[in-house]
């Protein structure tokens, strides 16, 4: 059994997994993507998204700006997902008093402020600096946890600049799905779409939770809706 499949998923998550797999493509379709996700569901959806991305076996990049990377490592480990193909860039751990140990490939960035300098820093990373060597050219996908948090530290202009440079640094061959709560961050959602970000559409009939039904009604859409 594939390591990703070994973790049991409930019916709702399995449905989400299948929908995401269909949208991400096999092999992964490169480019910027955006998925409307309610803030309270970020971690759950991110977990299912990572399962879907990692099933292809390609190396991936995980940029942590909302919580120290150890939490995602713990989450993935608990769900039986092997982290060996993931390289973590932790931009928030230095702000945290947390000292949970992990044994994954991780490089620490100075902080979420001035995130626009990260793409250039990534290009120059090397093992000599005590950071994990990481070949951007080999990268299959990149996940940012999460983009909305960057707006606490940076202007929209800086976040836009970061995204543009980040996609460029990845050479346009990498899948970059971003989770954004459209209701709370409509400007950010539209910004990603303006950067040719493809909206990942989920079928609303397959979203059974009462809160999501309410949400779909608010968004007044028959096709797309927040998860």
């Amino acid at each position, binding site marked *: 059994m594939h390591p990703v499949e070994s973790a049991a998923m409930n019916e709702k998550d399995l449905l989400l997994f299948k929908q995401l797999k269909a949208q991400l493509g096999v092999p992964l379709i490169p480019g910027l993507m955006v998925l409307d996700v309610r*803030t*309270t569901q*970020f971690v*759950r959806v991110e977990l299912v998204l990572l399962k879907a991305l990692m099933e292809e076996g390609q190396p991936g990049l995980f940029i942590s700006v909302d919580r*120290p990377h150890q939490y995602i490592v*713990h989450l993935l480990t608990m769900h039986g997902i092997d982290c060996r193909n993931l390289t973590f860039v932790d931009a928030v751990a230095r702000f*945290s*008093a947390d000292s949970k140990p992990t044994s994954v490939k991780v490089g620490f960035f100075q902080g979420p402020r001035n995130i626009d300098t990260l793409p250039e820093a990534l290009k120059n990373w090397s093992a000599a600096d005590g950071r994990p060597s990481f070949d951007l050219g080999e990268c299959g996908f990149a996940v940012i946890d999460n983009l909305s948090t960057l707006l606490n530290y940076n202007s929209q202009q800086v976040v836009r600049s970061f995204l543009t440079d980040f996609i460029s640094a990845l050479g346009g061959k990498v899948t970059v799905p971003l989770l954004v709560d459209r209701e709370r*961050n409509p400007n950010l959602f539209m910004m990603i779409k303006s950067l040719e970000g493809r909206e990942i559409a989920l079928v609303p009939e397959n979203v059974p*939770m009462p809160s999501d039904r309410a949400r779909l009604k608010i968004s007044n859409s028959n096709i797309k809706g927040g998860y």
Partner: protein
Amino acid sequence: MEDSKLERTDLMRIPAGIPGLDEMIEGGFPFPSVILVCGSAGTGKTTFSLRFLCEGAARGEQGLYFTTLSEPTQWMMRFSSQFEFMRPEFFDNQIIYEDLGNILREGDSGKLLDAIESRIAEVVPQRIVIDPITVVGEMFKDNYRQFLFDLTNRLKNWNATTVVTGEVRPGELYPPEISYAVDGIVLLHLAEELGARRKYIEVLKMRGTNHLTGKHSIDISRKDGIVVLKARF
């Protein structure tokens, strides 16, 4: 909005589910956050916690209830089933009940912390309850503060709102060891007035929230659990 300025977004909030309380705290508890609900025996701490979880379950959110009392699930269900907001089908589905009593008795705070985190990582809840946290203080006297610091610090990173309940000792307003580490403190008072015992709720602290201050009368009913009564004058 100028593009070069920071885009300030209001804090994400989730309704506590206690009728009248959400209006006092700008619509609900910040998400994520750690909230202390404290009071003496019989003030409604567990009822508050259950209502908080059931509110989430009704909204499709996952709940995780840690008890430190080694109380069997059916025993807790026996009493809580008297409330109309309680739906038995929530339990073992959208509300997972977890007993920490056995691990607590081992006396290893690191092991307890790991057990809590592992269950959180497994269940991925949006709402968590630890009821009551003060029992832990009695078990880990020497390193209780360190444990609370580690616990609250980690809970804040799990993308959930956590309600921890605390028993108040005579002469105390709230359990002092944990008060500095939480984002909000809700007091449940029991006061003797004119020969009768009356119950009150008071929001003492709620970070990032313009909350109502002062004591507000509450009632505990079978329909809604705790209800904040509206002032008659």
